[in-house]
């Protein structure tokens, strides 16, 4: 029996449906430490007392949903790897404010190379402030290299 992933069926069943929602409040000192360790030097990222203090733009990439796949998502057979991260920044993220992070599957697609087919899964986490304004989104890309047919 083939373990090939039915990408079109997965897209039809799971794309663009929020499957996870978590609340998070960033700590100012941790946010500053994150920025400093990355090499940021501007006070708006490194000094919690700065009037424009905010999270560095890539910080949303560190947030995790409570689950990686929607409920009922089939087990995917193959070698899985973290393929990348993308962050879209819309508004500054301020520590100390309760944020809501909602995650959905944004895309599923394939690429085929010499070693076979690879399936990419893109989870998008959208981060909202208490007024429901979208502050940022973070895409997590994972790739599964399918096992060749025996």
């Amino acid at each position, binding site marked *: 029996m083939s373990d090939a992933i039915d990408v079109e069926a997965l897209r039809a069943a799971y794309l663009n449906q929020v499957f996870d929602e978590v609340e998070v409040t960033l700590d100012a000192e941790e946010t500053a430490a994150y920025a400093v360790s990355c*090499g940021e030097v501007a006070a708006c990222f490194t000094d919690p007392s700065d009037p424009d203090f905010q999270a560095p733009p*890539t910080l949303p990439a*560190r947030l995790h949903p409570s689950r990686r796949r929607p409920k009922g998502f089939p087990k995917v057979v193959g070698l899985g790897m973290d393929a990348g*991260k*993308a962050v879209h920044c819309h508004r500054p993220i301020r520590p100390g404010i309760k944020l809501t992070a909602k995650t959905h599957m944004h895309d599923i697609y394939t690429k085929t190379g010499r070693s076979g087919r690879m399936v990419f899964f893109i989870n998008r986490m959208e981060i909202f402030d208490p007024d429901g304004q979208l502050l940022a989104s973070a895409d997590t890309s994972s790739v599964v290299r399918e096992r060749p047919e025996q």
Partner: protein
Amino acid sequence: MSVNGITDVEFGDTLPVFDPDTSLANVARFVEAAHWNAPRFTDHEAARAEGLPGALVPGIMSQGFLAAMIHRWAPKAEILYVDTVFRAPVVVDQPCHINGVVTDLDEATGEVEIDLTVTNEAGETRVFGTARARLPN
């Protein structure tokens, strides 16, 4: 040299290379702040036991290096987007270089597109990506 606005930028400009701190102590500080603390990032022996070449700089930290490099070049830049592909591991305690080149710009909107890479001492690309940022007019 840092830039203050879009008029200071030309297509093809190379950003000043940034050599980030990849020491074990700094990576430990990062993973603590990121709540990503795991031995594969903070302990060379534990990482090797997992089959890795040594403790790893987390991919999200490499992404943070890329953003910091843009801010060092253009302190007033507002980063709109950073897309990063993790091609190969960046190993803790091994020097790496953050490189960038302006591949597109729009003087009307103040937006620039920058191709970014993280390279090691051998000149191998470990991480690459693209960023879009807005600069003052």
